């Protein structure tokens, strides 16, 4: 493992499997009477959130607390950021308070990377602009592996996602989740296809390790996993499709489309959902949907990441 988790591209297959296997062992914690481990006692994790988020922040907070770390939550609203403090000054303040890890969510792509150059502790990227969201990709990979590679996780240790066909549908252009997932899932051996209108695909998509399709219906029968992405209207500065209704007709997952999936296929969504836009309510609530499972797995995978980054010895470059 590296010292920071900035991008899914930084993870080798061995790193990714170590995180998934660690999470597999930590998953049983949720069934125990005492859901807490003493491992990170005395360590401080700062949640530095410059953008609104419920599930990611709560998920990191729960993960850190279950490992007995001290958690400081920092949100830009009501802080000195509102008074005009720069990211660097905020980082140096946190540094002076002795943060062992900083979990950062920021609207600017590359914010986590910049922060890593300013602080001594580990930096975990919890979403930077339209760039990456690696822990979301890890929890998605974990969910896929648990559902499709062996039941109850007993036989999944060390297994990759080889041969699993994943179709990621929707707003790839503004979605950091898509980029992280493409990188991580292909590292783990899955075959990834992006299905989206041409206007919602980034220009450089040709260099990504995945296939591209403009036709969702032809991809559905050969998909083991369909991952629906949220239409990120808050990041859209121009008209990317004629109307929400047209988008929903062509790229939304409704009951009829779900029926075209293979028997074992699962439906994923990183949340928050726009019910009725990219996913119909009856699909979101069906047995094939892993949306609630993904939230539970999110805590587990973030525990694994925090443990692997903070649980061992200090990294040599820090002590020098």
């Amino acid at each position, binding site marked *: 493992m590296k010292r920071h988790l900035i991008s899914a591209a930084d993870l080798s297959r061995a790193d990714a499997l170590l995180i998934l296997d660690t999470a597999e062992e*930590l998953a049983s914690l949720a069934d125990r009477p005492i859901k807490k481990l003493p491992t990170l006692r005395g360590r401080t994790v700062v949640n530095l959130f410059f953008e609104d988020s419920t599930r990611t922040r709560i998920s990191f907070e729960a993960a850190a607390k279950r490992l007995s770390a001290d958690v400081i939550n920092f949100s830009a609203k009501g802080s000195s950021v509102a008074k005009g403090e720069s990211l660097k000054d905020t980082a140096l303040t946190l540094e002076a308070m002795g943060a062992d890890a900083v979990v950062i969510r920021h609207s600017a792509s590359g914010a986590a990377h910049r922060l890593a150059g300013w602080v001594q502790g580990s930096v975990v990227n919890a979403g930077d602009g339209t760039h990456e969201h690696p822990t979301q990709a890890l929890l998605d990979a974990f969910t896929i592996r648990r559902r499709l590679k062996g039941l109850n996780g007993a036989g999944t240790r060390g297994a990759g996602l080889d041969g699993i066909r994943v179709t990621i549908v929707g707003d790839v252009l503004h979605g950091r989740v898509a980029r992280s997932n493409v990188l991580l899932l292909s590292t783990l051996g899955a075959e990834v296809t992006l299905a989206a209108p041409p206007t919602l695909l980034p220009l450089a998509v040709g260099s990504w390790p995945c296939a591209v399709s403009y036709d969702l219906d032809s991809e559905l029968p050969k998909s083991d996993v369909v991952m629906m992405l949220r239409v990120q209207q808050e990041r859209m500065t121009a008209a990317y499709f004629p109307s929400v209704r047209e988008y929903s007709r062509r790229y939304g997952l409704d009951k009829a489309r779900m029926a075209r999936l293979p028997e074992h296929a699962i439906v994923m969504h990183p949340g928050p959902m726009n019910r009725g836009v990219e996913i119909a309510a009856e699909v979101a609530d069906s047995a094939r949907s892993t949306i609630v499972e993904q939230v539970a797995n999110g805590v587990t995978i973030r525990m694994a990441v925090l443990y692997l980054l903070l649980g061992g010895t200090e990294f040599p470059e820090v002590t020098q």
Partner: protein
Amino acid sequence: MCAASNPVAGRDGLAVLDAEEIRRALTRIAHEILERTHGGGEIILLGIPTRGVPLARRLAALIGEFEGLEVPCGSLDVTMHRDDLRLHPARALGRTDLPAAGVDGKTVVLVDDVLYSGRTVRAALDALTDFGRPLTVQLAVLVDRGHRELPIRADYVGKNLPTSQREVVHVLLAEVDDTDAVLIEDGGQP
């Protein structure tokens, strides 16, 4: 390196127990457990990964053979409770798998391959507390090599092996290493 070089499983070292001796030691421990727990009615065997787990399974099988009872058997990973985590890079976790009935009110026998500093057992006692409140906790080890750093002793010992701290004890088990043996090797460093 030394005259005591032994080709077992490609490891150097002097063989101090062979497969037969390990089997006999486990047989004796199984009888001792039954004797000390008055027939083994309410016991659970918990192996500490990696090699404590197959040892616990073998003991459970032996007890089943002698008394015809099915002894619940599981594994207890202690990594997250260790006191030396910050001295090494983060370690991969072992499996924790407790019998569904839980540990409350039971006699838990922890099983490990080598008892040395006692720190692993301390971590195991901490880990166990998170799962419930056993009536008693006992400890069974295949090899006790001395040099305790904590006030911990084993209830059942396969072999007491006086060692120097520069020596390394390797326990090899068929389930993990394809062969049964206990080797002692001169580690070189004091």
